């Protein structure tokens, strides 16, 4: 597991640059070598699998075949949509030898069906908690956080086969090992509204508002996420949520890798925490961390 293919996907190059920075930082600290797949292409996102099964498979199969060509056994994708797309394609090729053969002959795509496709949460969950604890330099014990998993990280269960689809605990375990005070709550996998933010924003604002409300009720000072879209809906649109719901949330939304990075001693700037819309400064000061 020490060396594996890294598929950042489009979000991590732009809107979620800080997820990319913090993921690379945490993996480096934990001795995991990430080899970014050269010339990787779009995972197809929602557009592809709504258009055509084969197209969706082919787009992800191309990326998997790059990893195979480089002799990389497994691939990790921090973005749950990319992860879902890769995992879906890999499973489809495993279960459909004819499709696999077709891709090989017609598209020259040869994917290793045995290698594993990981989400970053699943990848880090393979490590012993002691390995994580050994890296902790900053005590975040004062920080009260809820982990928000979103929809694709642990679902659909038959495809993902990781953690409990209704009440997951893997991200909580990672952050607990990093010394954070994780709070129990009931909205871990509630829908954030996803891309309805574009087509039907009223629904998204209501759903994301509910999530922030439940996080507040649980006593959280921040929400840890593992998905660029969840992050955008909860952070980027938090002002809109407040307007729509008549609320006054000022809840920092942090990538779980940023929280781990803080515990491992990185500065907030190194982890891109200054890039968020809802400032985490006051919270971090309280925890004794300077923004610089």
């Amino acid at each position, binding site marked *: 597991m020490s060396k594996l293919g890294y598929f950042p996907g489009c979000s991590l190059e732009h809107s979620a640059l800080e997820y990319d920075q913090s993921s690379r930082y945490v993996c480096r600290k934990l001795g995991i070598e990430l080899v970014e797949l050269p010339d990787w292409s779009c995972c197809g996102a929602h557009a592809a699998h709504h258009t055509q099964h084969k197209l969706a498979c082919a787009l992800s199969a191309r990326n998997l075949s790059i990893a195979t060509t480089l002799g990389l056994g497994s691939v990790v994708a921090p973005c749950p949509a990319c992860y879902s797309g890769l995992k879906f394609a890999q499973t489809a090729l495993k279960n459909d030898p004819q499709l696999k053969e077709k891709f090989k002959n017609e598209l020259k795509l040869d994917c290793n069906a045995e290698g594993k496709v990981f989400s970053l949460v699943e990848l880090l969950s393979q490590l012993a908690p002691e390995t994580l604890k050994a890296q902790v330099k900053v005590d975040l014990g004062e920080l009260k956080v809820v982990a928000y998993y979103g929809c694709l990280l642990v679902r659909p269960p038959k495809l993902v086969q990781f953690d*409990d689809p*209704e*009440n997951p605990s893997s991200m909580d375990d990672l952050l607990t090992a990093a010394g954070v005070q994780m709070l129990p709550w*009931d*909205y871990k996998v*509630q829908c954030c509204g996803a891309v309805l933010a574009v087509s039907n924003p009223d629904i998204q604002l209501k759903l994301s508002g509910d999530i922030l409300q*439940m996080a507040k*009720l649980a006593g959280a000072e921040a929400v840890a996420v593992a998905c660029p879209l969840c992050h955008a809906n909860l952070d980027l649109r938090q002002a809109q949520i407040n307007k729509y719901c008549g609320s006054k949330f000022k809840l920092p939304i942090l990538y779980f890798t940023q929280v781990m990075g803080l515990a491992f001693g990185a500065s907030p700037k190194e982890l891109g925490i200054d890039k968020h819309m809802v400032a985490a400064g006051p919270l971090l000061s309280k925890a004794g961390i300077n923004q610089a």
Partner: protein
Amino acid sequence: MKIGVFICHCGNNISAAVGVELVARHALRLPGVVCAHTIHHACSEPGQLLIQKCIREKGLNRVVIGACSPRVHEATFQRVLVQAGLNPYLLELANLREQCSWVHEDREAATRKAIDLIDMAVGKVARLQPLLSSKVDVNKRTLVIGGGIAGIQAALDVADSGHEVVLVERTPTIGGNMARMDKVFPTLDCSACILTPKMVELATHPNITLHTYSEVEQVSGFVGNFKVQIRKKARLVDMEKCTGCGACTLKCPIKAPAEFNLGLDKRGAVYIPFPQAVPHIPVIDKSICTYVLKKKCGLCQKICPTDAIAFEQQDEVLEEEFGAIIVATGYELMDWTVYGEYGHGKYKDVITSLQYERILSASGPTGGHIRRPSDGKEPEVIAIIACVGSRDAAHGRPYCSSVCCMYSAKYAMLTREHLPNSRVYIFYMDIRAYSKMYEEFVQRAQEKYGANYVRGRVSKVFERNGRLVLQGADTLLGQPVELEADLVVLAVGITGTASTIALAKKLNISHDEYGFLTESHPKLRPVESSTPGIFIAGACQSPKDIPLTVAQASSAASKVLGLISHDKLETSPLVAEVNIRRCVGCFRCLDVCPFSAIEEQVLRDGSKVARVNPALCQGCGLCSAICPPAAIALSGFTDDQLISQMEGLCSQNPV
């Protein structure tokens, strides 16, 4: 050799896919065949008469019938042969229905296959020999396993006809799940009022011996002659001396969750499961009693006025013989904590249907007052979620549990009677109220008792500001719904039990993947198990309500009475036989025989050979297949008969 061939249309079940006339014409050309006919329904009276007429007039001495599976009508056609004066084992059935017409669409290919099947049957029938069955004595005693309403009803029915019954119950009392219930649909009579008199009747019946806190350990033998070992677990209470005063249960300082109340309250290490328990005698839980574990306490022994506490008591193993066995081991609720969306069991006020029965019951942990487990408060809003673990393939439970729709309506009524100001919501997928007075019952819950029925599944239950919140969809309104409730009752699906599966293995009867016992035929043999002489009744066969359970129990009892009304039973002559001149005494047959029918036999020269006990042999043929020197032949399926059958297939008779 005079063979008659009869090809059945089976209405159009066979003739729709198979050219039956062509098959009959082809059969006429086969060696030994003297007549071949098609019949619309071979099993009907005109069909049977035609076969008998041909046997008499053409002097047939072998009969081939191309019709349905032997499982359906072999016995019928054997009787036809007997009535016409032929040995019933000179019959060969070709299955042209289940194994041909029902599974093929191409008429030409299906007809060719039917011709092959007839070729084989004619090939085999020519080598069949008349066989004679033997007779064995029938033991008239009946064993009933399980002391719920099914077992009680079956035992009483058999015993009332004057026959001896032994009832074995695993737990310290009879009564089963029905004893846990408050009132029962559709008439809302109290469960205890109709059940407890039956429990007492059973315990005092002169023809019934009751063994509670006992388990069936081992079963051998066969229909009419079962040998059963029963383990009577040590109660550590002398049942002769104990008066059931219950003083010991009040003094015991140890506490554990009470099984009968499904963990809603506690019981002592010495306890009587519930006030109407039969027998009304305590039992000591050896896993928690400090006297048993470390010889400390012994308080119960000190205060017992009749000196009935018997710590020295040991398990006792009884050996009994029976002619018939009725299995009535009941059901459990499936483990609903696999449902993460309902909290995996972390919310105290999310309870199961059976727990709610106990809360409603006057003898339950709250004395019949509806109070929720978390804080003992009266709930205002009660939500019932139907189909938790039923009709849910995602959780491996595709089947309907059949009683939940009805008891959900019952809960709405009883709740509103107890707490007139409460509101009851029932989240459902469909309402299944099919039986007598059932639909009216559900209507009454809605119209007279104001139950709020919401059609749609609940996707999530969670806690917010100290109240339980249900999120789901109202699929009739096409809208998401959210409800705040004080108590959530899950209508948890019914499942077979691990202990029934273990028992099924001892009894050599079959069960399905959910732990329900399999009946011999889903329509025509609903209370017979796969093993002759063993019958099944109640929810151990499939989820059932009380009326159906009682009906099935009585049905099983009547089957038992039919069996033990005979003094002797005919055994099937289709059994294995050892040729002792060929047997080398390797006894591999002994290892493979599932029925323990192979014995060692010592010949005069001292050498050991195998012998088949024809009363135990079920004719499965395993021994015959494994025997290295081919010394074992199975009557009706001998090597030369099977080879002749294959020759029929390979003869390429012109069509």
